[in-house]
């Protein structure tokens, strides 16, 4: 069976570009990943369609960030 090579998405490529710079021993890696991924998703969407409202977008991001932190018991 031929295995097809999966191509990284644009978002994945951006995330990979940060490499080890996202590692921080004093912080929760899952939460860092969550925040950076949300920020990347938002920014890629902005590239295509533009933010309807940056403040609203940031509010949504902040709320989901706090929610995630609470889930992880930070």
């Amino acid at each position, binding site marked *: 069976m031929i295995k097809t090579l999966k191509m990284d998405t644009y978002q994945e490529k*951006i995330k990979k570009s940060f490499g080890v710079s996202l590692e921080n021993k004093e912080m929760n890696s899952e939460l*860092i990943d969550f925040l950076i991924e949300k*920020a990347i998703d938002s920014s890629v969407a902005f590239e295509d369609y533009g933010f309807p409202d940056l403040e609203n977008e940031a509010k949504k*991001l902040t709320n989901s960030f706090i929610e995630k932190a609470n889930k992880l018991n930070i």
Partner: protein
Amino acid sequence: MIMIIKGISLKNFKSFYGDNEFIFSNGLNIISGHEGAGKSNLFDAFMWVLFNRISGLKKGEKLAESNNSYINDRIKNESFINSSTEPIICEVQLNVIIPEENNKEYTVIRSKSIYLNKGHEKNVFYEKNVWTYENSELIVSCKDKNYNEEEYLNKEAETKLDSIFPEKIRKYIWFQGEQLNELLDFENPETLRKAIDYLSYLSVYEHMSDIISYSHNMLENRIVNSIRANNRDKKKFDNLKQEIDLKEKAIISGKSSKLLKEKALEKLISEEDELNEKLAILAGFPELKEKEGRLIGEIEMLKEQVSNLNDQEKTLFVNKWMLKGTDDLLMKADKEIAKFINYRQNLVTENRKQLAEGVPGDQLIHDMLEKQHCTVCDRPAKKGSPEFISIKSQLDSNKVVKALDYDIEDLYEKIISLRGKPSNILFKIKNIDENVTAHKSKIEFLLNERNRKNKELDNIREKIKEIVREKGHELLNLNPTNINSTLLRVRTDKITLMRQINSVTNDIILNETKLKNLYIEISKLKKSDEINIIEEKLVRYTEFLSEVISKQTEKEKIELIEKIQNSANDIQKSVANINNIVVVFIEIDRKDYTLKFVDANGNPNPSHGAQNTLAKMSIINAIVKLSNEKKNRNYPFIADAPTSDFAMEFTDRFLESVSNTYQQSIIITKDLISNLDLYKKKGYIKKLYELQKQCTEEIALSTNSITIIK
């Protein structure tokens, strides 16, 4: 996402009369043809169907519904001559496939209908008021391989189109060669910055930075709100909070002032572009008008010269006509005069001979007797004296001498003044003949010259008419001196605004640092261990990420510029590395985007025109290539006359390089037309169309010529 243009159909659009169709392949598609064959009209068809724009419109100017200049003139003329009541439909249809989206096929159709007005006969077919129009219509429909279909009309369709073909990218991948200088100006590093901003992925990092910093501020605010509810020193808190509020207000006001200034700057930049565009439109136009004026003057002068020569010829002809019949008479007169002079000369000779021999003739003796003086011995001979008698005795000597009497001498004096005159007149008559011939050839030369200049004038007037037709009558009112002085003012204002923006940015940074310190101070007022605020932990995350993103953005920028430089130089090397051609490399400053040309050893090496063009194209191709790789997107590349100042070998290699950069490219060029058969064999050209201009005699206007696809 890969996008492939399957084909384009044109009906009565510009020089495309009736129904015409182009089918495109993956890879490089070439459309070639001589000047005026309709190549740029095909490019215009792409621009019209996708963006409702045609060439000649100014930046930001919308295509007026009343403008029907893009509808084929031949069909308009036919309809006009036949007084047809049927509508003329102009329509362009574009078919695009996106294989990754379930082979979704988009069909974009833009159409426009016009009808003849009543009473049109008083005008000419290309006048606007001859036609009534209906608003143009846009339909975007898409269907996937499962036959799911969606359709969008007009405004909705425009929005859909914008999501498929983003406006900011299109000018870099669909352009006319002559616009290249606007896209990348080596004297203006801002243009390269803009190209990188629009085409590359760097903006994603900037948006990330914006959103994280916004979120960070929100978390800080939440912390302050929690501390306000529970703090050690209420008074100090209030003071600090007041300061925080002030700083925040200052930052907000600074940001909004920066935004306003940036918008004003953008407006100035667009005004500058517009003025540059006007100057570009004018390029050559004032010279054409000047040439037209000069030719009119020269033609008038020639006309005057011909008319003077004609008058002179008339005078010469009258003179000649009057003198022509006197030829024989004059010749006879000339002979008679000569004869008389000869006769008189003989008399003189005879008398001299007689005197010399001392034997005067009767006439001389009569003279001596009358004068009572001997002419032979020069002594007096009074009447009756022996001398007198001796002279008288000679009378019977029978020696007859012809007389030189007074009448003959009188006549001789008159005749001598006439000598040469008849032959002179004859010579003049001969001269008149020569003059008339010379005049005729001079008039012929002047008439040829006038015809040549008239043709030149017609060509110039046609060019002027075409430019005015294409760019609008407003062109006639443009004044280059005024435009240049406005441009100078705009540039000065731009520099002032840029300085102000820098100063506002510095103020914002300063206030943000102060604000950060104020937050640290206010957080110290929290009653420790009594409350646990989660936001306090989270701001460390946003702070950390802000720093990481900022460093990464800088790193990405430097890496990207390096990659653009290398990739562009690779393209240049592969295109221009031909014997005897010095390859010029580009070097881009990592910080301020300034660009210089260097040789292989890094020494300054100014480029010439074609190398400049090649460098610009290579940079754009490099940015597009790198961005496509990162974004997994691939838009087709459409360019009209991108290689117009390249040598043949440059063109060849450049096209090959384009075929390697883009999944699909459509190049419209006249440069290959003389070697079409050769290019048909080139493996990297997947499709090749030839356009030809056809102009029928019965519709001989140049605007009525039509394009034939081969």
